[in-house]
């Protein structure tokens, strides 16, 4: 299903934690892994307390070393180092994905990036909002370990919208590719975890809102079973779960279940403050889980 995987590396060991994912996917679909380093003019010598590649020859040597490691595992690899003005890294990554015809960007999000990240989101989220290529994000725990990538279950959060269902086909494709099953989850809020307009309604009509949400929980079970049946008829193993509570928190709990090794989610691709005001679930889930996530950037419906 994937032909070209774009893997941006900044020279840090943290960024390299995506390599097992890229290798696994590359081998499974016979795709070429395209290693990219974007040289940032005027960039700091260290990033996240690790070295940051600043010279072109240094970068090329680094990429070649990584490439040979991947080739030894039987993966087809290409490399490229590219120079841009400071602060243009996310846009440059997205532009390369377009130019190179990449159909998936695999990258690691580091987590803490100060005020800039709060306002605009991480580099990873900015890459997502700058382009239309799906992004597989990993957020490894800060223990220096490179987690293995062997998902047995793929979590697909649904919210009964056609928009969220657009994640189903890519998820099914990945499930077949990785020999995994699909786990469909919908979170129905409780009165105290409603957001947006419904929260305003709940303020004046708490008991009715609670009863309505209970009703919604029941209907959601039927809905998920319906979707699951459709997928099962295509030969996929599917499980379903309806959870109650804060949507990103409950999804993070579900992602922490054993065997869940990947999340596939459709998103509007908002980052930073825009994501917060829009109530973006993807952005908030990203803060709460270490499970890799495939984010499919889709337009406004």
């Amino acid at each position: 299903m994937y032909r070209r995987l774009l893997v941006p590396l900044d020279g840090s060991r943290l960024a390299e934690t995506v390599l097992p994912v890229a290798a696994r996917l590359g081998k499974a679909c016979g795709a070429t892994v395209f290693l990219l380093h974007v040289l940032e003019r005027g960039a700091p010598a260290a990033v996240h307390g690790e070295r940051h590649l600043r010279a072109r020859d240094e970068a090329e040597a680094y990429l070649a070393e990584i490439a040979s490691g991947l080739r030894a595992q039987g993966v087809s690899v290409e490399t490229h180092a590219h120079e841009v003005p400071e602060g243009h890294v996310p846009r440059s990554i997205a532009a390369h994905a377009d130019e190179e015809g990449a159909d998936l960007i695999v990258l690691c999000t580091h987590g803490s990036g100060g005020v800039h990240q709060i306002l605009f989101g991480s580099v990873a989220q900015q890459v997502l909002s700058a382009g239309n290529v799906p992004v597989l994000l990993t957020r490894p725990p800060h223990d220096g370990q490179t987690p293995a990538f062997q998902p047995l279950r793929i979590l697909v959060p649904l919210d009964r919208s056609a928009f969220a269902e657009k994640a189903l086909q890519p998820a099914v494709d990945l499930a077949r590719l990785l020999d995994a099953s699909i786990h469909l989850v919908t979170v129905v809020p409780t009165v105290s975890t409603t957001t947006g307009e419904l929260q305003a309604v709940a303020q004046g009509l708490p008991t009715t809102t609670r009863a309505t949400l209970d009703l919604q929980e029941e209907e959601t079970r039927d809905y998920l079973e319906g979707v699951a049946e459709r997928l099962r008829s295509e030969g996929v193993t599917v499980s379903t779960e309806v959870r109650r509570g804060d949507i990103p928190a409950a999804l993070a709990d579900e992602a922490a279940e054993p065997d869940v090794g990947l999340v596939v989610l459709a998103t509007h691709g908002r980052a930073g403050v825009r994501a917060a005001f829009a109530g973006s679930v993807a952005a908030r889930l990203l803060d709460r889980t270490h499970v890799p996530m495939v984010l499919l950037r889709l337009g406004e419906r």
Partner: protein
Amino acid sequence: MTDAARQPEGVPEASASVRAGHEALGGHRRGPAAVLPFIGPAFIASVAYIDPGNFATNISSGAEFGYNLLWVVVYANVMAMIIQSLSAKLGIATGKNLPELMREQYPPWLIWPLWVVAEIMAMATDLAEFVGAAVGFNLLLRIPLLVGAILTGIATFGMLYLQRRGFRPLEALITVMVLVVAGCYVLELILSGPSLGQMAYHGVVPYVAPNTFLLSAGILGATVMPHVVYLHSALTQSRIRPRTDLEARRLYRFTLVDVLIALPLAGVVNGGMLVMAAVVFHEHGFTSLSDLGAAYRTLTPLLGPAAGAIFAVSLLASGLSSSAVGTMAGQIVMQGFIGFSIPVWVRRFITMLPALVVVGLGLPTAQVLVGSQVVLSIVLAFAVVPLIAFTSNRKIMGALVNRRITTLVGWLCAAVIVALNILLVVTTLGAHVPGVS
């Protein structure tokens, strides 16, 4: 849904109280025990019906007319119960909110003006909440009102951000602060014993004079709250409707319980404010309240020197929390009427502009707030008339269609609202109304 055994394990809110609630509505419990599970939530919900608009209209009315307009608080409260429950019923029966149904039922040329009226409603609502919160900051921190308004602007954005991030403790704190002040007014009402007879009389027997129309309309607008009429109909989001008539009726009964407990609670607080203003201001010859900041004196009998700070905190808290609700109502109105919406922070920014202008020009806050509630009373008819029309239409409502008596009472409410506003406009223009001294 009502079967306790079917509640999934480990669900935080499928607790004993909910099960008790289901049993009560299912008819397994009778008497006072049947209502108990709902008291807590409704108690908290009553805060949603107390906002700076209420503070301003109640206290201005008490100062100017003593106990005379207490009946307006009582009658407006009854009307609010009827109208708010009909709005929720519309949402339950159709799965659509009031603006959406208006767009569906009315010709396009009518929709745009109706939307504009609804946006005026949203602006007037927010004006009162915002100015109220600014006065709160002004009193509490002893800073100029304009600085208070700017702080309010920052605070409302902060609240919106936190809310969207799913952070809730702040709201709980705000609710507690409003409840504390609400409790103070109720306590004062009880402690001001001697006036009980007068309160009972003026709570029931109408007092009408041409110069009362303005404040009467203000109380009405502040109590029935048109934005809540639009909002309550948005109860069933994502088009999830009860599957059976039985489920629909059960949901509607929950609504009645919510509304019939929360609104009277808020009504007692509103009445308390009016009565205390009558005692503190009117009976001492201060009959005109222009600055909302002076209204803290209504709490002095109970709280002494602490009155100013506590009043300020509650004004701030109720202003901020109601402002958030108003913004959401605005989003529903826009999406429903014209089918698209702007990012919520853009709405937040636009709706705070009139308030900043009012504060910047140094207009008298209490009078501006009363004025905004009068505007609400005028636009109220544009929400209530379609609401009664829709809820009495069996094609739209199915099994939940109004009974004949409900429709009759509904139209009576609408007629009173329209008549009061016509009287207000006519007397404001200087015409003599026959039969009114």
